[in-house]
């Protein structure tokens, strides 16, 4: 009898275990199938349009006030002089004519009188470009494919918005459409984000526009008189920020093999499509896009929209892409629910990291503390030094070394996602020091001076090797 009872118990146990396994196994198959059917990466070829890459849990790091410090009376940036691209031509002409600061017209005379160092730097860049071209034919030819690729990436771009004032150009054509009544700001925000992904963006955020970020004087005409202050249009109530990444492998091979054109082009297209979409709903919309078709400063708007925090190198650091992205903004009066800014540890991290400042070939990124700029505390970037380096290297123009070396600018794999979560959730800052130390030892870059062209004392170095498809010597018989 005891033997029989034992046999029955064992059989019962085996049967129960088998049934449980079958239920669990079938449930697992069902769950796995559900995930396979729903997963964004199942949209073959269209993964990017599903918003799958914007996967950081921002709600956990949402803050009521943006992670920058307002310390006094604020002023707006002068787009004519504080944007390097707007002023550099004046300094170049002065260099050719042998003119001095006092010979310049306003506002450049006043700006350079206050920043004489910038005048000296800005006069040099044409000469630097000439010296780069004196490099050996072998060195110059190495970048044929990189330059062709950068040029091709910039070949397609939406037409400009023209030179009508915002009160005309931002609105649908006269009498074409009354604004549709939207059901709710929350639903509109959801819709705008979804169509932004469909238009090709990877990141999108919405904020109310802070007028402090609008240029006091325009950096390009776009319907504004260059000698009159911009009165912020009343219909610029909201700002939608979009961002797309630069191709990862060439980006790591900066400054010589990378380009901004790929992300510039994609973000421009997204912003123009978005503006067109909003106008077709009867509301006003104006795209502010690279390169230099802006009436405002983009990084602080990105911070307000909860896409990231501004780093030591002045570029916004996002949880998903680090700083490997190029943004565009659409200003509009379409009522939408806004996003909250986020604080995920970047301010603390940048205090100790300083890798971008140490690797910056031009020394444009400060290694010290934040300074007060126009009423806000931030790290100062010396744009004249930065732009001079753009002219001191081969390739497609530009640098982007600070973007490539930033520890946050890493591809989406478990190693870097884990590091991001550790830094974001560590209130002590101990992990920041440890991970910065690891970054410096495990992922070192060349000597900063090596990034310069050989004719300027450098070695034509790039942060990482170029991808195989940009190695000219492997494809073109020279």
């Amino acid at each position, binding site marked *: 009898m005891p033997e029989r009872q034992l046999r029955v118990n064992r059989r019962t146990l085996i049967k129960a275990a088998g049934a449980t396994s079958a239920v669990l196994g079938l449930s697992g198959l069902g769950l*796995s199938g559900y995930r396979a059917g729903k997963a964004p*990466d199942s949209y073959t070829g269209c993964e990017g349009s599903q918003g799958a890459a914007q996967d950081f849990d921002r709600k956990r790091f949402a803050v009521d006030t943006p992670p920058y410090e307002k310390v006094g009376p604020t002023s707006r940036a002068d787009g004519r002089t504080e944007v390097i691209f707007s002023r550099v031509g004046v300094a170049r002409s002065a260099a050719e004519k042998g003119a001095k600061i006092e010979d310049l017209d306003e506002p450049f005379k006043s700006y350079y009188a206050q920043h004489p160092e910038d005048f000296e730097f800005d006069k040099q860049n044409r000469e630097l470009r000439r010296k780069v071209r004196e490099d050996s034919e072998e060195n110059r030819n190495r970048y044929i494919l990189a330059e062709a690729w950068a040029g091709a990436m910039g070949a397609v771009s939406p037409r400009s918005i023209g030179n009508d004032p915002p009160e005309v150009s931002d609105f649908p054509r006269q009498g074409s459409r009354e604004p549709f009544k939207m059901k709710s700001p929350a639903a509109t925000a959801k819709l705008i984000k979804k169509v932004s992904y469909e238009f090709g963006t990877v990141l999108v955020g919405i904020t109310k526009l802070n007028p402090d970020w609008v240029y006091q004087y325009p950096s390009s005409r776009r319907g504004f008189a260059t000698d009159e202050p911009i009165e912020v249009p009343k219909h610029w109530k909201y700002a939608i920020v979009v961002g797309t990444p630069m191709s990862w492998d060439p980006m790591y091979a900066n400054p010589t093999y990378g380009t901004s054109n790929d992300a510039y082009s994609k973000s421009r297209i997204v912003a123009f499509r978005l503006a067109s979409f909003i106008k077709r709903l009867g509301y006003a919309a104006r795209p502010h896009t690279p390169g230099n078709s802006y009436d405002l400063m983009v990084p602080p708007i990105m911070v307000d929209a909860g896409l990231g925090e501004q780093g030591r190198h002045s570029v916004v650091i996002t949880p998903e892409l680090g700083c490997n992205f190029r943004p565009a903004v659409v200003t509009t009066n379409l009522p939408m629910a806004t996003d909250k800014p986020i604080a995920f540890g970047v301010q603390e991290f940048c205090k100790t990291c300083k890798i971008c400042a140490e690797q910056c070939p031009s020394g444009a990124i400060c290694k010290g503390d934040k300074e007060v700029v126009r009423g806000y505390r931030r790290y100062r970037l010396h744009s004249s030094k930065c732009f001079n380096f753009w002219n001191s290297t081969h390739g497609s123009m530009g640098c982007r070394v600070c973007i490539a070396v930033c520890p946050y600018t890493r*591809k989406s*794999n*478990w*190693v870097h996602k884990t590091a991001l979560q550790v830094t974001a959730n560590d209130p002590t800052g101990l992990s920041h020091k440890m991970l910065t130390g690891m970054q410096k*030892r*495990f*992922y*070192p870059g060349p000597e900063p001076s090596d990034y310069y062209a050989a004719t300027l004392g450098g070695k034509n170095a790039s942060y*990482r*090797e170029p991808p195989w498809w940009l190695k000219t010597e492997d494809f073109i018989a020279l």
Partner: protein
Amino acid sequence: MSFFEGGLFWFTEGVLACLAIIALRTWTQDKGIRMPFWKWPVVCTWVLFLGVSIAYVGTSLGEGERHAAFLGAVCAAVIASVSGVVVWRLLRL
């Protein structure tokens, strides 16, 4: 999607882990090593560290970061060796 990104990969990993645990149990019985409950987490942690280290080296190589892979391998080898001796002594208790 490649095999290594799919569920089948993790299923296979799970089967292999089960087989390894059964083998470890048999081996310790043959060796006369007692395996009270606290020894299992110790061994699992060590094996997990080894697995993560190997995965880090592989990921770094996949990213083209040979220097990071090499340094990671060296550091992991040193830590795994030292901790391996400690774990072995604990198992013999």
